[in-house]
């Protein structure tokens, strides 16, 4: 059950940031990362100092960039913005039948390695019910994934 929760937050994280993902009102990364960092000064800086590094190009972020070192490392609300885009990756992998995001989802749900191919196929064949509209929310996606798994003999075991 705990692992199921992790998976929910993996998807749910992007939900809170963009309720109508995939293809919702955009990814918020760009603005934060590039502000004040794409100018000529940055390039000059790099040339002159020969040593740059950082979060975006240069180890530079404004504020803490959602980085939480207070002790909580779980995939929960603190990294909401961070997990932006995951739902989109999952959608792509389900349509293709496999991929890193889909693997991450199955690992986070505790699905055994020998069942992952089956999981991938199941998700692939139910793509249309899992992503019925372009404005589906991550919550709805997760609920439908659970529904699909419940209807499958092998996968139903992971839900109990």
């Amino acid at each position, binding site marked *: 059950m705990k692992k199921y929760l992790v998976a929910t937050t*993996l998807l749910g994280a992007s939900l809170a940031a963009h309720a109508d993902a*995939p*293809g*919702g*009102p955009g*990814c918020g*990364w760009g603005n934060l*990362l590039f*502000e*004040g960092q*794409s100018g*000529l*000064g*940055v*390039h*000059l*800086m*790099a*040339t*002159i*100092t*020969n*040593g*740059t*590094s*950082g*979060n*975006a*190009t*240069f*180890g*530079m*972020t*404004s*504020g803490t*960039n*959602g*980085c*939480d*070192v207070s*002790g909580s*490392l*779980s*995939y929960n609300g603190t*990294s909401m913005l961070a*997990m932006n*885009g*995951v739902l*989109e990756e999952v*959608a792509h992998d*389900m*349509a293709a039948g496999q991929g*890193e995001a889909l*693997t*991450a989802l199955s*690992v986070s749900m505790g699905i055994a390695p020998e069942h992952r191919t089956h999981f991938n196929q199941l998700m692939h064949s139910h793509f*249309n019910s899992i*992503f019925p*509209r*372009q404005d589906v929310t991550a919550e709805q996606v997760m609920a439908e994934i659970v529904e699909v798994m419940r209807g499958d003999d092998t996968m139903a075991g992971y839900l109990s």
Partner: protein
Amino acid sequence: MSVLVRQFRRLWFAGLLAMAWPFVANASGADPATLAKLPRWQALMHVNHGATWRDVGESYVDDDAFFLSPQGKRSPLAELKASIRAMREPGSPARCRFPARFRFIAEQLGWPDAGRGLAHCADYLQFRSELATGQLVLIFPTAYLNSPSSMFGHTLLRLDPEPDPDSTWLSHAINFGANINLQDNSLQYMWRGLAGGYPGQFSIVPYAEKIQEYSRVENRDIWEYPLNLTPDELDWLARHLWALRDINFDYYFLDENCSFRLLELIDVARPEANLLRGWRFAEVPVKTVRALYRAGLVADARFRPSKATELARLSESLSSSERSLARQLLRDPSLAGQPAFQTLAPARQHRVARTAYQALRMDHREGERDTDVATRSLALLRLMQQTPAGAMAQSPPPAPPEAGHDTQTLTMAAGVAHGAAYGEFGYRLSYHDPLDRARGFLPGTGIQGLDLRLRWADGESLALERLHAVNIRSLTPWTTFDRPISWFVAGGLEQRLVDTNDDELMPLLEGGPGASWRWGSLVPYVFGVARLETPSTSRAQFDVGAGAEAGALFYGAGLQVGLTTRWLEFDGGRQRRRSSLTANLPLSRNTALRAACSHERTGGEQANDCSLSLRFFLD
């Protein structure tokens, strides 16, 4: 039997120690002065052993909260004594703040509760239980397209729950970054960056976030280097990370930057590797990778292509008609009903739909996405889902960044100019020009800082031929799906032909936008050019010039050739035409032979210059 006896003796001895413990601080006999000199304690204190020039012998940590002794920053011994005092009491809060120090002290002094002395530290134990330490990986996001400064890259670390995990999306990234003030302008940014005006901190974030950031938003390929640190060594690192939360280190672009701090962290895990004993100026991430290789820490190197690289590979696997079909499809997915798409084999249909989808996402990776884009995205995904993926050939990864040439350059040249022979010595602080050996770099991209040339011509004295502070070129080829703007900028001093048919040293600043293409090994390009220069050293004025440049780069097997021609007209009506041909022949990773000829015509004067140079890369 004898084993049991020995164990019993050990237990008995431990029990005796436990009883006598308040009175016997130094059970192992080691005195603090000796312990404070041990590499592990020095690493835990982040002592500068001369790797950088500021405050040698002191701690790199710039935060009072990190030290229990007022002398802690300057004296590892004082800090050790203060730590021993503070941690002696079971249940002391200092143990929870510095679990790595506690482990060191408890083990060295043979404290009986070394194993369970942190039982009262609920927050730390929670953190430690969530931070799985199966494997440490150095992460190097390489340069991204059209951003030459990113060539220097960034490095971070990743902690995997187990060696070679099934999914790295669930791993944690350890990042060191500075917190900049977005209100600062470029000049303030540069100054503070150089002078340590921004505080830097370690942070732990989900690795999936970093993948999104680098491979999707910034389109940077990522190299991942698993390190061979043991779980016990990683325990030191995990404990120490806890003590570093919210702790400030001044951030210096030049040396004490993200890459350097990672070395400090790895030093805590394996002090014997001596990563920070040498002089480390201008810590570029690729040097960090090389340092870890030298220390025998790197177990493997893996390539994670960015979304842009994935799209490029997909696109290359299509025929040109399939590519244009993909472009039409991303604008209007309903075209999939037309014969042009329907007559394709199902696996080709999948690949065209996939290319269209990825190109569409690439277009809209930043900024707002409207319903139209979302609807088209879903339609293309449906198309992908309805067709079989087929086998995708895995392209081999490119050469890793550490296979590239070193960062500084020395050149020795001989040539003829104005009909007179000359010898030339050159030094370049950084890093790469578009004709240097491209292995490990993005072709067409160059970034040069502090490029100095001294020339001794026959019958003349030694003279400064050129001092370019900066020279950046970014050629990003147009593709079926994207038409990026190439650009260049340069500034500095150089000898230039003036009307009196002589050269004078004068300042210049130039730059402009352009476009480039890629046809196999050939990269043709055009630029608009704007240039500011003094017409003569005797007149204190600036002339503004405008014009155009066209050229081509050829990247052959073992040879790079560049041909370029430029025309400029200045506001006084003065014109200049300049053409050059350069061939660069790499002899090894760090040596090359270069031949260059140029012809220039300014006003009524003209000059030719041909030279042959040997180039050595170092550091």
